[in-house]
């Protein structure tokens, strides 16, 4: 086992920012808007670094796909304890069309290239909420997957994953190499301490293009329109159950 873990980190609009739709409804405003690492990706990095600290794995490699600024996200991962980074450069129209299908192809290619034992991803990104990349990556590699992980334990050449599902918690054991996606309660990500930020400067980030990995970025999706959710209308208060039934009948819902 190589002891190498790949962690995908995505640069997204910061969770605290108020999102605005572009006037032409083609997308959302990203220029000049604060970006940071996807919170679930932070949890993924934290888990990988914890595994390394427990000496269960040897190396954590942070991967990000995107324009030049994605390197900042990788640096943050390095400051949290990742050993090195890989920046897959995707810009312009390709970047706008970049989605789980393309990223999972890239992750799969990298996993083979780097001989990864484990891939840890956030369960979803807070900008598109797709929740697909982990699953697609596992499928492309024909690897087992442990998604929505709230607990991960390496046991020899297997991984025990406790998954958060609608009914509660499900525990599964899967063989490595495997893909795991991190859910909220998996851990609490550490702050990048100042000394670690300084150390991160010396860690390497390799640059490559999707073509170097033989990946075709063509999208099968076309975004037609982006709209804000409808404004929430005021409700109506009623006094009795009869009133409620009456109002529902009026609205034609029953």
């Amino acid at each position, binding site marked *: 086992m190589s002891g190498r873990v790949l962690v995908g980190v995505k640069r997204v609009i910061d969770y605290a920012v108020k999102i605005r739709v572009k006037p032409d409804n083609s997308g959302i405003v990203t220029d000049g808007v604060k970006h*940071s690492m996807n919170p679930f990706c932070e949890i993924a990095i934290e888990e990988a670094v914890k595994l390394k600290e427990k000496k269960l794995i040897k190396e954590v490699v942070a991967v990000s796909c995107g324009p030049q600024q994605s390197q*900042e996200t990788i*640096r*943050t991962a390095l*400051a949290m304890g990742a050993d090195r980074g890989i920046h897959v450069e995707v810009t312009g129209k390709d970047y706008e069309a970049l989605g789980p299908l393309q990223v999972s192809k890239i992750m799969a290619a990298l996993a083979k290239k780097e001989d990864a034992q484990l891939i840890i991803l956030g369960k979803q990104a807070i900008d598109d909420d797709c929740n697909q990349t982990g699953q697609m990556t596992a499928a492309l590699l024909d690897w087992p997957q442990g998604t929505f992980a709230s607990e991960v334990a390496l046991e020899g050449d297997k991984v025990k994953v406790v998954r958060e599902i609608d009914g509660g918690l499900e525990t599964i054991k899967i063989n490595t190499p495997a893909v795991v996606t991190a859910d909220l309660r998996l851990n609490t990500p550490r*702050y*990048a*301490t*100042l*000394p*670690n*930020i*300084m150390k*991160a*400067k010396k860690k390497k980030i390799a640059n490559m293009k999707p073509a170097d990995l033989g990946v075709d970025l063509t999208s099968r999706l076309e975004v037609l329109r982006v709209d804000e959710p409808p404004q929430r209308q005021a409700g109506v208060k009623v006094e009795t159950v009869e009133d409620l039934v009456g109002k529902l009948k009026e609205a034609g819902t029953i």
Partner: protein
Amino acid sequence: MAAPLVRILSKSCRQISRPWGACQAGWRSTSHRPATDMASDQGVVSFPPLQTYSEEENMMREAVKKYAQERIGPFVSKMDENCVMDKEVLDSLFEQGLMGIEIDPEYGGTGSTFFSSILVIEELAKVDASVAVLCDIQNTLINTLFSKLGTAAQKEQYLSRLSTDMIGSFCLSEAEAGSDAFALKTRAEKHKDYYVINGSKMWISNAEHAGVFLVMANVDPSAGYRGITCFIVDRDTEGLEICKKENKLGLRASSTCPLNFDNVKVRPNTLHHGGPMYLEKNILGQIGHGYKYAIGMLNEGRIGIAAQMLGLAQGCFDNTIPYTRQRVQFGKRIFDFQGMQHQISHVATQIEAARLLTYNAARMKEAGRPFIKEACMAKYFSAEVATLTTSKCIEWMGGVGFTKDYPIEKYYRDCKIGTIYEGTTNVQLSTMAKFIDKEYDH
């Protein structure tokens, strides 16, 4: 123009009996980074705006901002109420590497630059000025003194502790020696192979938690200020008494205590080649040079205080504007009244100006250029801006600004000390005037 000015100042040092502020003390700061990259291919030089940061500085600022909001924010009002710095906050400051920003990694420090310290102090002050001042004193006064003046052995012993778990205090002021610092009376009498310190100090920040005290005492009162020497006194030294802390208007979570020295024994440096090293009870730097070190250090610490006041003003402002955008009176947001807009814009301009003064003074220091006048300007102006901002913010908030339920009144109380400590506004202005006077000598 700058070089001749320095030479003139060094000469005038000997003539002026009160060296306060006028003596550059030959202080050279090493620049860790070159001045921001300017030359382009065509040989045309382009200058980035002052608010341009290296990637490392940006990352540090973001990290500290997040940390301050999440790990310090929840404790702020309790610490202010109880006049106590929470232990968890203290521990996390060390954990995050914020207490040894410029200390070499070989001693467990972060190994970053002075400007990074300034950014850190500013970010901390946006959340709590008491925490910011603790961090400022540690980084710009204590750590710098040890780094610049310490022997290899002293650095070994103290820097590694200062970066990981020990707080330091700088002891200059006394009851009868504030602005007139060099009238200090604390005496260090030389005995055969040790000194005995007697006297008392006042207004000593961090004293409640400090593990080491840098004490300015006079070994030879007949030599006036040239007898002042910097002694290293460990907390548990016999005869050192840390008295009850002051009950202050602001910066209440930062401990400010009088100290008593009752026959405190301190050993001087022993020049040794091998043999046991008696490292406790030591002298920092040279005997009789304490006044120079104090001035030099305070020139730099001044920029740190400017950063603290700047952060305080910005934090207060940031907590107020959202309210003005929400509060509706007479059918519109109070932000939309022209009177309010004019006041708000005026204050925002002052804060921006204070920021530029502070950042520029810091960059000048890093570049090894003379910076004392600019540091004085930054500290003086930032403190005044903090006073204006906090006062206005309470007014803009109206009645709620006057209650302790909102954080604004704390900023108002905390800012006042800015015009007083580490060189009062009047002292800063007089110092600047000396520089201005010299500038017109031909």
